[in-house]
């Protein structure tokens, strides 16, 4: 059950390596340079440059009016951001950690997500809420939540999360440019992931709402996003080799969703129709997590193509564990391959009625 984090294939080259954190910082910097209405603020984003250093240097370059340390109050941050957006600015705010966005939940859900709708488009909310999320970095309690289920269930928000260095830049630029509020979830444990990426010529990436096939395959589809993308790619590599009782390797397709809202049904459905089998992988607890929606939706659209139910590999239905136990919680390569193995490869399983109280029941 490895939880090691590896770079996506593209990152293997080492010519001009940049980290995801650096790419995010470049995105903020370039957005501020291009548009004077872009304002960055939050706790410690100024001289400290944020606890993950993503805003490093912005106050120095653009002054404290453009990149501003706020008082310590998340509802205040999101509420003033809403007000600034009402006056035509494009605020980009930072919540310091996932769980520390919760104090601002009412402002996000009751106002930011609904203001455009409420005012029939007269008061759009072109603001971006950056939230470092997820575990795997040994953070103590309240520092490793995967809170995407809350935001997905809130109409009016976009929910975006990059898994590669290029996407970190491209998707953050697109989020800031969006005329709608975007919850931009930054996978904490990928902040230090590296790729060959040139800040002078950041490569173009597909826009918000487009999933990408990170690895082509024919046996089954792994559907994932954010911090679990590298894990799934690793699992796909491992699956190529022989395994189990001398069976042949599986050729797994890996889809990086990139945005949970809007959800790219087409790309996912096309893949699952081709492979006939799918596993959704994420770190967030399984129960009522993103995987439920994804599995249900795919099943609605691909029912007669499916050889097996869409399975889910997710975090357990527990509060995020303490650092010394987190490896047990995080979906790792072995757990993903176990799920793939349960996708009813034996022909007997394809008979109606043959599957019931099987191993799959309590997987998530």
């Amino acid at each position: 059950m490895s939880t090691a984090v590896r770079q996506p294939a593209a990152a293997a080259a080492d010519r001009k390596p940049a980290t995801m954190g650096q790419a995010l910082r470049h995105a903020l910097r370039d957005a501020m340079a291009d548009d004077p209405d872009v304002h960055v603020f939050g706790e410690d984003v100024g001289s400290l440059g944020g606890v993950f250093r993503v805003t490093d240097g912005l106050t120095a370059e653009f002054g404290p009016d453009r990149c501003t340390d706020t008082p310590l109050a998340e509802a205040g941050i999101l509420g003033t951001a809403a007000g600034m957006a009402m006056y035509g600015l494009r605020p980009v705010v930072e919540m310091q950690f996932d769980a520390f966005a919760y104090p601002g939940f009412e402002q996000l859900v009751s106002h930011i997500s609904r203001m455009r709708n409420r005012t029939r488009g007269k008061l759009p909310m072109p603001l971006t809420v950056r939230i470092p999320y997820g575990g795997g970095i040994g953070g103590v309690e309240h520092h490793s939540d995967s809170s995407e289920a809350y935001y997905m269930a809130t109409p009016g928000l976009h929910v975006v999360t990059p898994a590669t260095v290029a996407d970190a830049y491209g998707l953050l630029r697109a989020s800031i440019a969006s005329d709608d509020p975007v919850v931009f979830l930054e996978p904490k444990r990928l902040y230090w992931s590296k790729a060959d990426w040139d800040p002078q010529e950041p490569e173009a990436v597909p826009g918000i709402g487009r999933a990408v096939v990170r690895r082509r395959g024919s046996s089954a589809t792994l559907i994932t996003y954010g911090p679990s993308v590298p894990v799934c790619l690793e699992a796909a590599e491992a699956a190529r080799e022989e395994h189990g009782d001398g069976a042949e390797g599986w050729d797994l397709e890996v889809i990086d969703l990139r945005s949970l809202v809007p959800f790219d049904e087409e790309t996912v459905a096309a893949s699952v129709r081709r492979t006939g089998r799918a596993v959704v992988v994420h770190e967030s607890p399984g129960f009522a997590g993103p995987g439920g929606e994804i599995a249900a939706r795919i099943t609605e659209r691909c029912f007669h193509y499916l050889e097996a139910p869409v399975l889910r590999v997710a975090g357990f239905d527990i509060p995020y564990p303490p650092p010394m136990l987190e490896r047990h919680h995080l979906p790792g390569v072995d757990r993903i391959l176990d799920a793939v193995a349960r996708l009813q490869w034996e022909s007997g399983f394809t008979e109606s009625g043959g599957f019931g109280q099987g191993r799959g029941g309590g997987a998530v």
Partner: protein
Amino acid sequence: MTVLEQPGAYAPAPPPSWRPRTDAAPLLPDAEPYRVLGTRGTRTAQDGAPGPDAGLLRRLYAAVVHGRRFNEQATALTRQGRLAVYPSSRGQEACQVAAALALGERDWLFPSYRDTLAAVARGLDPVEVLSLLRGDWHHGYDSPGTRVAPLCTPLATQLPHAVGLAHAARLKGDEVAALALVGDGGTSEGDFHEALNFAAVWQTPAVFLVQNNGFAISVPLAKQTAAPSLAHKAVGYGIPGRLVDGNDAVAVHEVLCEALDRARAGGGPTLVEAVTYRLEAHTNADDATRYRTDQEVEVWREHDPVTLLERELRDRGLLDEATVREAEEAAERQAAELRERMHQDPPLDPAELFAHVYAQPTRQLRDQADQLRAELEAEQRSAAAAQSAGSTTAGEETR
């Protein structure tokens, strides 16, 4: 240039060199709510200030007379099923009207659900203002055009919006102030605290008007706070707190104008507590007899904002019967027009449910809009079929 330079940061020196940053005394409210109406003798003698301008008095008078009538009309519309709900500001007309008239052209108002009258007094179309409470949409007027934010339902959440907007204006170099309205109950919410603190630290041109009407639905002020007054909260943010008689339109107007001028000039925010009273129930759906006595209400009726103002105008010889009649007739006309317009069914388009959720509807929303359209067409078809079947039958019967 930065607007965010800290005015006199704390010296980091340890005690005993360390001292409170500013003198608290000037931030504390007066020991008695500021009043103008009925104090002419005492006040001019005391401070030599000129009495309130006659033109202003007359404008305030016309507006409170209209406001009173507007409250009555809106309440009546609930009984006629033309409004889903109405939280009346009867008894608080002075605050509402003074707030509207104190605002500069470019200033913004951030009202709560109870502050329809303030929006109407600012000149907005009352039918558009009532949209939320009528239920045809969540919000009915053009906020950027009118510089009135949507009527806000989640308590105190509009305050950080006001701070953010005023801060943005200041960053852009515009001389814009924001006036945010909140109730006594709303001051207990965390958002009140956070908004005032942001405004104070950033010296934002925002003014906070607490209409302390004695109740948060059924909960009296004594269960809401133990503070000497709500205005005393200001010192905890390092901003001035003002206490004013909220039924005295002239006093409220004066205090707000002063605070807004100071705000626009870069002098920072002010917290104003207007002591007033909600003469009617919380909304038409509420039963106020469960939590207060008629006697209590009676005492406040004696201090009615409309009467106070009318008395002053009469005392100063500014009010003849013609003016009274004129104001009342104007109010009546406006009420009649409102009634008539509200009796027409509002245009409704179910497709709007999907149109404004995002700048571009998602694929899922487009599908859902299609689904609803198909359902409605089917509904119409079967209604038409039923009707034509019915009319045939009816025709046959009369034949």
